C-alpha cells in the first residue's frame, strides 16, 4: 500500500526529466498510467468480503508518530475516487492544456496533490494526516495559481490558502487536544476511547477546532467564499480538486470522526445546521452566477453542504446516503466541470450570458451535459444516480426522530422543509446551466471564435463519468454491497445494509421530489422575472469581510515592521542589546539571581591589576581616538594584555594562541586600515550619544553582575574533573586542553576549522573581486 501512496510523489521527481520530450509527446501520456495503476491496485480490495487492512511503518517512534495506513470502507471509497477521477483528469488535461503551457509544473503540482490526498484518506495517525492535509492545501494553492500572470488566479490562490490553512491550524490544535486527552495518536484507538474524550471538559473546544478544520476545507458556510475564486484554476484542476476530492477532505474528516463525535447532540446541531445553511445558501447563490464554473462552484458548495448535513443527521439511512452521494457527486460534477471546460475551450468564454444554442454545434457535449445536470438536479429518472442519493437524502430528513422538543426537536421538524427549498434551487441552477448554455438563441456576435465540437480525446473523460452516472443509476446495487455498504459501516460503526431501488411506492420522499421538480420547473422557466429576488443579497458580502481582514492585517503588520526595520545597523544592535538587557536583568531580579560571594576568590596581585588597568584604559581609549594608528595600537594593547592575563591564569595554550592571533590581526588591521578612510568624529545628535553610552554602560554592568553571580553560585560540581581524569587514559595526552579539543570534542574542532575555511574562501573571493570592479 505504501508504494501506491508514494508512487505519485516519486513520479513528481521524474516529471522534469520526461517533460523534456513534451514537444513530441504530451507529458500527460507518460503520467496517465500512474493513477490508473493505483486505481487497479485498490479496486481489487473491493468486494463483499472486504475487511479493513492496516500497515504500519515507524517514523518518529519517540513522538508516537508512525506512518499507519488504515484502509477501511471509507478510505477505499476516497482512494478509488482520487485515483479514478485522477486518471480521467490527467487524460482530459492532455487535451485541455496545450503543449506550450508549463506542463512540468502542472503535473508536478497535480501529482503532489494526488500523493497528499491519498495520504489524508489513508493515514491513521493524526499528525501524519495533518501533514498530508496541509500538503493538499499547498498543492491546491499552487494549482489555483497555475496561471500566475492573472490577477484573479493569484487572488484566488491566496484566498484558498489563507482560509484552508487557517482551518488546518485549527485542526492541528484539535488533534493535539485529542492526543493529549486520549494518550494516543491513532484515530482508531481514539475511537475506542470515545467515552473518555466525550466526557472531557475540553470536549466542546476540541469539537470546535476539528469542525473548523473540516468546514474550511469543505467550503462550508461562511467559509465557502474561497471555492468560487478557486475556479481560476485550469478546469481539470477544478474538476479534480475542487469538486471530486480535496473539498471532500472535510467531509472525510467528519465521517472519519463520526463514530467518536456522532452521538453528541452538539454534533447533530452544528453539522446539520451548517450543512443545511450551506445547501440552501449556495444553491440560491448559484442561480445568479454568470460564469459557468461559478455556477458549478456554488453548486459544489451546496452539494457538500448536503453531504455534511447528512453526516450530521447520523442515522443509518443518512450516512448511507452521504457516502452514496460522495460517489455520485464526483461522477456528475466531474463530468459537468469537464463540459464547462470544453465549452470554455471551444467558444472562448464561460459567461453564460454570451452562450446559448450550442446544442447544434456541440451535440456530444450537450448530450453528456443532459445526463450530468439531471442527475445533479435529482430528477426522478431511473437511470440517473443523482436521483437515488437525493431521494435517500430526502427520506433521511423525514425519518429524523431522535429528539423531541426544544431546539433540536424544532430543528428536526424544519429540516425536511429546508432540504426541499434548497433542492428546488438546485434544480433551478441545474436547468439554468444546461438551457442557458446549450439551448436558446445562439449569440454569434458575442463569441470570439466559431464554436465546434471538442476533439474526441477531450470527450472521453466526461463520457466515462456520464457512463458511471448511468450505470450506477441503472444498477445501483452493483456498487452497494461490495463497496458502499463498507464505507457506510466505517462511518456508522455498525452494520448497514440498504437496498437500493428506484420505485419505493408513492411515499413522502417521492412526493418531495415531485414538488422539487414541479416548483423548480416553474422557477427555472420564469427565472428572469425573479432576478431581483436572487440579487437581494449583496454580491460581495463575506468576501468584503475577508478582504477587509486580509488588508488590515497586511497594512498593520507593514506599519509595525516599518517602525523597527529602519535599515540602520545601529538601531538593530541597539534593539537587540536593549532587549537582552531588559530580559536578562528582569529575570535576574525576579528569580533573585544576583549573588555576591567573595569568599572563594583568588588573591589580588599587583601584576594582574596593572595589566587589567592598562587594558581598561586602552579599551576606553578606542572610543576617543581619532587616528587609525592609535586605534590599532589601543586594540592591540587590549589583545596582548589579555594574553598576559592568560599566562597569569595558568592557561599557556590560550596565551600562545592569543599572541599569534593578535599579531596576525594587527598585521591585517594595518593592511586594511591603509585603504580605509581615516577615523573621524562624525556629527551626531547628543541624544544619540547619550543613548549609546547608556546602552553600553547598562550592558557592561549587566555582564559584570552576571560574571560575579556566576562565580559566586556553584550549583553543580564542574564536569572538568572528568576531563582531567580521563585525559591520559582516554586521549593519551597530558595537555588536557589539547585532548579536549582534538579528542573529546573533536567534531567541534572540525567544524571550527570548517568555519575558518569558509571565512578564508570568502576573503579570497572578496579580494579577487577587485579585478572586475564596477560589476556589482
Amino acid at each position, binding site marked *: 500500500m505504501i508504494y501506491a501512496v508514494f508512487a505519485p510523489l516519486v513520479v513528481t521527481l521524474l516529471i522534469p526529466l520526461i517533460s523534456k520530450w513534451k514537444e513530441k509527446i504530451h507529458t500527460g501520456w507518460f503520467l496517465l498510467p500512474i493513477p490508473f495503476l493505483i486505481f487497479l491496485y485498490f479496486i481489487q480490495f473491493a468486494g463483499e468480503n472486504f475487511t479493513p487492512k492496516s500497515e504500519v511503518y515507524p517514523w518518529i517512534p519517540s513522538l508516537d508518530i508512525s506512518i499507519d495506513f488504515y484502509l477501511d470502507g471509507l478510505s477505499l471509497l476516497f482512494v478509488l475516487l482520487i485515483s479514478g477521477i485522477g486518471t480521467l483528469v490527467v487524460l482530459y488535461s492532455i487535451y485541455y492544456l496545450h503543449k506550450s503551457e508549463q506542463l512540468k509544473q502542472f503535473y508536478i503540482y497535480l501529482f503532489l496533490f494526488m500523493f497528499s490526498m491519498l495520504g489524508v484518506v489513508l493515514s491513521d495517525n493524526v499528525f501524519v494526516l495533518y501533514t498530508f492535509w496541509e500538503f493538499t492545501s499547498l498543492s491546491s494553492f499552487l494549482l489555483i495559481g497555475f496561471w500566475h500572470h492573472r490577477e484573479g488566479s493569484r487572488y484566488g490562490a491566496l484566498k484558498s490558502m489563507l482560509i484552508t490553512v487557517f482551518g488546518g491550524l485549527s485542526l492541528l490544535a484539535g488533534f493535539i487536544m485529542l492526543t493529549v486527552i486520549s494518550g494516543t495518536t491513532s484515530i482508531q484507538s481514539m475511537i475506542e476511547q470515545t467515552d473518555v474524550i466525550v466526557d472531557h471538559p475540553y470536549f466542546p473546544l476540541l469539537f470546535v477546532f476539528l469542525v473548523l478544520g473540516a468546514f474550511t476545507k469543505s467550503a462550508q458556510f461562511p467559509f465557502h467564499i474561497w471555492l468560487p475564486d478557486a475556479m481560476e484554476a485550469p478546469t481539470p484542476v477544478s474538476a479534480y480538486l475542487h469538486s471530486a476530492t480535496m473539498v471532500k477532505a472535510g467531509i472525510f474528516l467528519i465521517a472519519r470522526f463520526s463514530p467518536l463525535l456522532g452521538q453528541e447532540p452538539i454534533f447533530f446541531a452544528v453539522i446539520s445546521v451548517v450543512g443545511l445553511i450551506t445547501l440552501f445558501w449556495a444553491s440560491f447563490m448559484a442561480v445568479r452566477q454568470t460564469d459557468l464554473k461559478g455556477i458549478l462552484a456554488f453548486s459544489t458548495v451546496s452539494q457538500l453542504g448536503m453531504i455534511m448535513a447528512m453526516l450530521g443527521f447520523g442515522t443509518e439511512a443518512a450516512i448511507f446516503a452521504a457516502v452514496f452521494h460522495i460517489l455520485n457527486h464526483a461522477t456528475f460534477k466531474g463530468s459537468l466541470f469537464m463540459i464547462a471546460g470544453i465549452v470554455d475551450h471551444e467558444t472562448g468564454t464561460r459567461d453564460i450570458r454570451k452562450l446559448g444554442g450550442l446544442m447544434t454545434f456541440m451535440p456530444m457535449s450537450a448530450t453528456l451535459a443532459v445526463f450530468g445536470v439531471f442527475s445533479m438536479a435529482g430528477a426522478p429518472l431511473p437511470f440517473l444516480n443523482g436521483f437515488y442519493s437525493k431521494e435517500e437524502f430526502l427520506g433521511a430528513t423525514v425519518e429524523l426522530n431522535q429528539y423531541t422538543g426544544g431546539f433540536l426537536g424544532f430543528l428536526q421538524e424544519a429540516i425536511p422543509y429546508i432540504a426541499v427549498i434548497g433542492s428546488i434551487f438546485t434544480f433551478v441552477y441545474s436547468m439554468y446551466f444546461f438551457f442557458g448554455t446549450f439551448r436558446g438563441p445562439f449569440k454569434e456576435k458575442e463569441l470570439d471564435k466559431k464554436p465546434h465540437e471538442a476533439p474526441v480525446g477531450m470527450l472521453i473523460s466526461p463520457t466515462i463519468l456520464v457512463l458511471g452516472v448511468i450505470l450506477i443509476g441503472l444498477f445501483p446495487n452493483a456498487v452497494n454491497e461490495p463497496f458502499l455498504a463498507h464505507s457506510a459501516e466505517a462511518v456508522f460503526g455498525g452494520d448497514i445494509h440498504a437496498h437500493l431501488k428506484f420505485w419505493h411506492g408513492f411515499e413522502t420522499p417521492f412526493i418531495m421530489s415531485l414538488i422539487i421538480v414541479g416548483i423548480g420547473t416553474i422557477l427555472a422557466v420564469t427565472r428572469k422575472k425573479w432576478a431581483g429576488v436572487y440579487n437581494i443579497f449583496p454580491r460581495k458580502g463575506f468576501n468584503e469581510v475577508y478582504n477587509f481582514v486580509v488588508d488590515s492585517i497586511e497594512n498593520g503588520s507593514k506599519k509595525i515592521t516599518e517602525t523597527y526595520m*529602519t*535599515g540602520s*545597523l*545601529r538601531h538593530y544592535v541597539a534593539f537587540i542589546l536593549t532587549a537582552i538587557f531588559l530580559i536578562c536583568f528582569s529575570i535576574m531580579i525576579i528569580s533573585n539571581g544576583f549573588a555576591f560571594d567573595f569568599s*572563594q*576568590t*583568588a*588573591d*589580588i*596581585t599587583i601584576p*594582574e591589576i596593572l595589566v*587589567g588597568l592598562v*587594558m*581598561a584604559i586602552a*579599551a*576606553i581609549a*578606542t572610543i576617543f581616538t581619532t587616528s*587609525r594608528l592609535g586605534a590599532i595600537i589601543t*586594540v592591540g594593547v*587590549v*589583545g596582548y594584555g*589579555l594574553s598576559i592575563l592568560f599566562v597569569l*591564569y*595558568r*592557561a*599557556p*595554550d*590560550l596565551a600562545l*594562541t*592569543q599572541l599569534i592571533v593578535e599579531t*596576525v590581526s594587527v598585521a*591585517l588591521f594595518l593592511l*586594511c*586600515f591603509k*585603504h580605509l578612510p581615516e577615523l573621524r568624529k*562624525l556629527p551626531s545628535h547628543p541624544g544619540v550619544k547619550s543613548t*549609546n553610552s547608556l546602552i*553600553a554602560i547598562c*550592558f*557592561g*554592568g549587566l555582564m*559584570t553582575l552576571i*560574571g*560575579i553571580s556566576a*562565580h559566586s553560585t556553584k550549583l553543580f560540581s*564542574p564536569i572538568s574533573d572528568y*576531563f*582531567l581524569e580521563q585525559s*591520559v587514559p582516554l586521549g593519551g595526552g*597530558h*595537555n*588536557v*586542553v589539547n585532548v*579536549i*579539543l582534538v579528542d573529546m570534542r573533536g567534531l567541534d574542532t572540525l567544524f571550527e576549522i570548517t568555519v*575558518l575555511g569558509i*571565512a578564508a574562501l570568502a*576573503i579570497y573571493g572578496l579580494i579577487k573581486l*577587485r579585478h572586475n*570592479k564596477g560589476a556589482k
Partner: protein
Amino acid sequence: MEILMSILAGILFATAIYNLLQKQLLRIIIGTVLLSHGAHLFILTMGQLKTGKPPIIVEGVEQYTDPLPQALILTSIVISFGVTSLLLVLSYRASKLNESDNMEELRGSEHE
C-alpha cells in the same frame, strides 16, 4: 580577583558596544574585536581563577586549573579571528565600492 576581572570584562563589553553603535565601519570592527576579548575574559572568570597548576598532567600534582573554559576560549579565539578578518575585508570592499564607510549612508534605499 574574580570580582575585578568581572569588572574589567564589563568595561570591555561596554566599550565594545559603544563602538558597535557608531556609524563608521572601522569602529564597528573594533567593537567586535573588543567584544570577543570581553567574552573570553568573561568565560575564564566565570570558572575560578588560579585554582591550581596549568592543566598539563604531571605526576605528583593534584590541583589543576579548570581546563574546560580554556578549551572553549581556544575555539572562540580562532573563530573570532576568522570573523574579524572577514569583517575587515568585507568593510574594505564595501567602502571601496560605495565610497563611504558611514553606516547611515550604507542603509540601502527604501524600495530595493
